[in-house]
């Protein structure tokens, strides 16, 4: 961001040395659909609609399934739960 720093830092300490200038789409979608400020007062799409879009999209690309649970048991929610422990 503040300065271009050559190969993406993710390459360091990673066993896969493939240089990757472009962010992985899934990492981007985690942030663009799960992050970003949600501003109320949007006259075109209500927040509920955006969440609906997100849910159906998640179903499309992630295929979350009960048969494939996280090894930790209850999977952390997509919503942020901040440092709280």
């Amino acid at each position, binding site marked *: 961001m*503040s300065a271009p720093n050559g190969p993406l830092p993710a390459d360091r300490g990673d066993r896969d040395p493939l240089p990757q200038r472009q962010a992985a789409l899934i990492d981007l*979608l985690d*942030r663009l659909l799960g*992050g970003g400020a949600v*501003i109320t007062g949007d006259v075109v799409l209500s927040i509920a609609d955006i969440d609906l879009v997100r849910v159906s*999209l998640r179903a*499309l690309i992630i295929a979350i399934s009960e048969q494939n649970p996280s090894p930790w048991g209850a999977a952390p*929610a997509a919503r942020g739960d901040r440092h709280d422990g």
Partner: protein
Amino acid sequence: MNGTLAYVYAVARDLPALAASVADLPGVSGGPVRLVRAEPGDDVAALVSDVTAADFAEEPLKRHMEDLDWLETVARAHHGVVEAAAQGTTVLPLRLATVYLDDDRVRAMLAAHRRAFADRLDRLARHTEWGVKLYVEAPAREEQQPAAAAGTGRDYLRMRRAQRGSREDAYRAAQGAAARVEEAARGHAVDRVRHRPQQGTLARGPGENIVNDAYLVPQREAEAFREDVTRAVAAQGVRVEITGPWVPYSFAAPPSEEPRQAPDGTTGP
């Protein structure tokens, strides 16, 4: 609803560098990006592009969001604008596809959230987001063992037991690594958000993603953060992938909604 709508990428501290940094960028519809301020001279500006109602009104947008190619194009354009703006100033990204009827509505939004935006921008200044993903490379549940390799029924059972044991070992090792990573990250980060572990066709291996966290890290701590997190993994069969630096997407908390604030004092200087 006809004509154009105003697509808002982000809200940013309006430093002199801002206008130049987005001047030549194609927005989500290929058109230019402009700055919109609630009042002339305001120090907070929205980054805005015109988009067509045919693509970004409620109904077409819902349809488009199910189209992964369309979504990727828009997501990368949105990201490109946010990243470019962040070269020169602090940026508060908005959720993908935040769309207003026109610039007046954008100005009203800016005015309504003026204080919250300013506070959040102060909070995010000189911080970046880092993604920390842990993968466990456990032996598959069903190894493709040729039937002959199993030999007798007893050999088969022993083999299955060994497989199950090594899977459990791998997850136990991963759990330990996750705890160490959290500890190491906490030494540098000021906030954390957990994303859902990545699964499905877009997820990348090798291994199974079991932790997908984002940390807000002061820029001066970035190097130490990465080093300490990488070092903390130290477990056989566990892999860490650190992504970033990101514009702090995961920490652009809703300005009018504060329940996500942690009570334990780790969230702010």
